[in-house]
């Protein structure tokens, strides 16, 4: 692994976009910055600028108005980039699944690499999600990345929770690869 690849894992800069979350996940992401969790020790900085960022954290389900914003933000990020869907809503639409203005999870608009479930996920789970995303990035750089049998990466949430059974994801669509074009299912 070259020095650039190594540095990439050491300094993931975050861009956070709140699609239509309830604020719970957003505040937990902010809490990650603070002394209790302190994600800066992993070199993670929260940048408000897509052009400087490597990791896009999406909270909340996508709605009709912000889908273009999310798409624009994703397109403005220079490669290599990873997308992490935070929370139940970011992953699938969550509790708002039957709301008229919600399209679904972030994966309707941008390719999601890591899903962090929870409503809201604890800050530990969010940090774990970022680290898992970096792990994927590392394997992609080495050319050894294969889609795991279990489908997309799903971070285990609460301490002591059992891992998601593999069978549950056996029929799930494979996660989009890192540099693939956004899958706009609407089109």
């Amino acid at each position: 692994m070259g020095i650039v690849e190594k540095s990439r894992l050491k300094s993931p800069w975050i861009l956070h976009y709140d699609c239509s979350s309830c604020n719970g996940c957003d505040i937990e992401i902010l809490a990650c910055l603070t002394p209790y969790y302190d994600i800066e020790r992993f070199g993670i900085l929260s940048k408000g600028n897509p052009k400087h960022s490597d990791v896009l954290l999406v909270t909340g389900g996508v709605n009709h108005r912000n889908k273009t914003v999310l798409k624009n933000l994703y397109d403005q990020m220079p490669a290599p980039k990873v997308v992490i869907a935070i929370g139940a809503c970011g992953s699938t639409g969550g509790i708002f699944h039957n709301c008229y203005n919600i399209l679904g999870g972030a994966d309707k608009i941008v390719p999601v690499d890591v899903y962090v479930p929870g409503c809201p996920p604890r800050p530990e789970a969010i940090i774990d999600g970022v680290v898992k995303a970096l792990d994927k990035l590392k394997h992609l750089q080495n050319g050894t990345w294969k889609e795991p049998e279990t489908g997309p990466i799903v971070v285990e949430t609460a301490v002591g929770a059992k891992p998601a059974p593999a069978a549950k994801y056996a029929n799930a669509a494979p996660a989009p690869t890192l540099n693939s074009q956004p899958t706009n299912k609407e089109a």
Partner: protein
Amino acid sequence: MQNEIQVNSATLIGETLKMLEAKMRFATATCLDIGDHFEIIYHFDNGNEMKHLRLSFKDGEEVPSIRALYACARFIESEIVDLFGVKISGVSAGLLLGSDSPVAPMRKSAPAKSEVN
């Protein structure tokens, strides 16, 4: 509800003016889809006591706006226009819903879930 006054499109402004003169605060307005007609309840508040104006009107009828009296009615009325597709004079839609969103989604006749997925 208690302290409720029935109004129509013609008397709404007059009754609202009385509220303004009584130094009532305009809390919010609720729109209801009652099948054959619509109702907008204007909630006014004075400390811990509330007064309500209930305006009934048919679909398609244009009702007057009270934003000249209460500046805070601006977003409240736009939201009603947006979500119920009713007509309030001088208020245009587009506050909450995007261009692809369902039209007048809060009506009873509107589908519960967006068709897209």
